[in-house]
């Protein structure tokens, strides 16, 4: 087993990054696609397995059109959201329908633009499966989660007034909600499994085919453990908040709560240092709590997916990433970035890359010598840039 490693440095990346930002500002944003390519090229080209490295091949020109479209969409969305909250709902529904297409295009484009040891990757997934995985299953999940609750709320609204609810009706509602939760749990695990299969199972490396052998049950186990951990973390959070509330004073918090919707009211509540310290501490606790949970899930899923993935039944993968070290890097990176007003971003990025690469193991009997790039159609980057702008997170990065 050999681990991947990163050959660059935080300082060198900082220099590239800051010059990129400068050029982006000077060109009022037009340079952004070139900046993005240069940042990515640096990070990819410094990712090594033995003496072979990755490469990112997209050009700024390829990304420009998609970038402009994505910018226009983003501004339209934010303006709608702020001025006409009702309209934003419609926009979200439209996004819901184009989102799977964006993921599909992004996966194709990004894989095609990535090479390892001069051989290109590619993605063979179908757009139909993208709609199943990124639209149908999430929809089923939400229906299962909220459907019974909404249905019983409606039932109570119409029939509840006509006297006390019989115990059998109450029992039926309870049963419905529990059944919905179980179904939601199943759909979520199924979704995770299908996403992993869709992304990885459709990756190609030259003529090589990735295969993945994971089961819904595996993801269900991880999900169950995550829910358990979340309860523990939530208890801890409530306990810590209790301490904060006892220290800050109940009245202060009451004065603040419920005033968040109106700046004129908020200013009345937010005038003192206690309130600000209080918001800061609550924010801190919530971030740490959510990072711990996120790190746990990610580390577990990664372990499960990597150890069940092969390339041509020859090359195998393993993850040695620990939830604890992942959570630590996430939390410390956040503070690094906040304390330096964002300037430490390149170092934070390099730290995270180092951690994930050094915990990615690859083993091969026959090596990579015989892989050759396959002929591919040139890909348009429109979907990729839309996905990038809206920070779509998909796939199971290295």
């Amino acid at each position: 087993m050999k681990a991947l490693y990163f050959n660059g440095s935080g300082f060198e990346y900082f220099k590239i990054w800051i010059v990129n930002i400068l050029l982006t500002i000077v060109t009022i944003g037009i340079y952004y696609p070139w900046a993005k390519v240069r940042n990515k090229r640096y990070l990819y080209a410094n990712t090594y397995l033995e003496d072979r490295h990755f490469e990112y091949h997209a050009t700024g020109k390829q990304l420009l059109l998609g970038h402009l479209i994505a910018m226009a969409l983003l501004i339209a969305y934010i303006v709608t959201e702020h001025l006409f909250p009702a309209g934003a709902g419609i926009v979200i529904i439209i996004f819901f329908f184009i989102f799977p297409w964006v993921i599909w295009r992004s996966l194709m484009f990004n894989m095609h633009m990535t090479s390892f040891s001069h051989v290109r990757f590619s993605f063979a997934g179908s757009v139909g499966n993208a709609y199943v995985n990124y639209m149908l299953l999430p929809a089923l999940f939400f229906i299962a989660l909220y459907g019974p609750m909404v249905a019983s709320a409606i039932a109570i609204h119409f029939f509840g007034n006509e006297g006390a609810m019989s115990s059998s009706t109450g029992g039926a509602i309870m049963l419905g909600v529990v059944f919905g939760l179980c179904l939601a749990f199943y759909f979520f695990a199924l979704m995770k499994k299908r996403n992993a299969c869709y992304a990885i199972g459709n990756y190609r490396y030259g003529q090589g085919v990735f295969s993945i052998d994971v089961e819904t049950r595996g993801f269900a186990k991880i999900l169950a453990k995550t829910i358990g951990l979340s309860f523990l973390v939530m208890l801890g959070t409530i306990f810590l908040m209790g301490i904060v509330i006892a220290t800050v004073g109940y009245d202060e918090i009451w004065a603040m709560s419920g005033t968040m919707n109106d700046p004129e009211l908020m200013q009345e509540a937010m005038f003192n240092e206690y309130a600000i310290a209080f918001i800061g501490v609550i924010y801190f606790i919530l971030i740490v709590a959510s990072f711990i949970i996120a790190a746990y899930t990610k580390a577990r899923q990664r372990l499960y997916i990597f150890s069940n993935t092969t390339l041509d039944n020859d090359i195998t993968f393993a993850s040695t990433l620990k939830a604890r070290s992942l959570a630590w890097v996430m939390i410390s990176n956040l503070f690094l970035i906040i304390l330096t007003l964002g300037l430490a971003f390149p170092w934070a990025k390099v730290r995270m890359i180092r951690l994930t690469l050094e915990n990615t193991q690859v083993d091969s009997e026959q090596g990579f010598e015989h892989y050759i790039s396959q002929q591919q159609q040139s890909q348009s980057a429109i979907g990729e840039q839309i996905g990038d702008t809206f920070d779509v997170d998909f796939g199971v990065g290295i």
Partner: protein
Amino acid sequence: MLIHGYYYQEGVASQSVATLCIHADDGANDNTVSIRTDADGAQVYVGQLSQINIGDRLGNTQRKLMLQNGYVFSTHDNDSIDALFKSSNANHFLSSVLHRIESHIGWVITALLVVLLTVFAFFKWGVPWASTQVAHALPEQANHFIADKTLEFLDEYFFEETQLSEEKTQAIKTHFFSQLVPLDDVEHSRKYQLHFRAWNQNGTSIPNAFALPSGDIILTDKFVELAQHQEEIDAVLLHEMGHVVHRHSLQMLIESTFVATVVVLATGDSSGLVDMGLGLGSLLVSSHYVREHELEADDYAFNQMLRAGINPIAFSNIMRRITDYTGNPEPADDEVLADNAEQETNVLIDYLSTHPSTQERIEKANKYIACYEKNLTVCL
């Protein structure tokens, strides 16, 4: 001259460790390049230096030389490549111009300073300027839409019906429409309306006044009770009119839209980590804008008071009475000016707070009071 690296064909995984050799031909202005593999010493390529295409230099990453035969020679030895091609290859300059900026510490520091200044200037002046423009360009209907929603929300969750007598509210209204509204230069385009509401929280009634963008002004019962003179009510009403005239509510919405857009764009290629941190940042930036709005509304009120012949001290008095009543910990007026040490600690808090420090407002009030005493109607 020898350069060590890899020799391979683009698209093929197998690569051989190889050495590139440059033969300096005397008298010729083009040099011959040859490549031998290290394993068996076989010569795999011979060509002219000027025929080679050079890839961009990017940090410490491997430099690619695209050869005539479709093969690639890549090497970590960037400096040798730059030295070699400096004089003889036309596309050398383009391939390393960005790298020269990135590796020059002076340029990097310049870039850093320019970026910091731009970001600062953008939030400090750019966003408020742009949102003022947009706020004034939007049709009046936008104001009414926002105002109706806000008043509905406040009535549902915070306010109760006023306990003030009909005569009292009617007197305030009559005075407002006959004395204050005419002061507004463009009153015809705005329909001011006064609303009276009781606002109780935790058993205490809260003294306050708000302006909605449509020109609806809300006074709470406790505020009317605390005001001892008509002039004090006038002062606060003028302050609220200032918010309406400057379209502050709408501006606030647009400003937060701007901040949200920039935050999303700036973190476009980042993970969710940064976004969470920036949420707090944008809260602080927004509260800065609210402070600026308050000071602007104060300015409007003071100027109108001078025009109407109302002593600006009325504003200080009512503000002091309100802060005394609500137990604001900040120094409430010029007589209890905090000693210097306390002021220092207040600077940071003040920056974080949305409330302009009473100190800042009192200084402004004092300036206008001095003008009033000299019988000036314009105060600079």
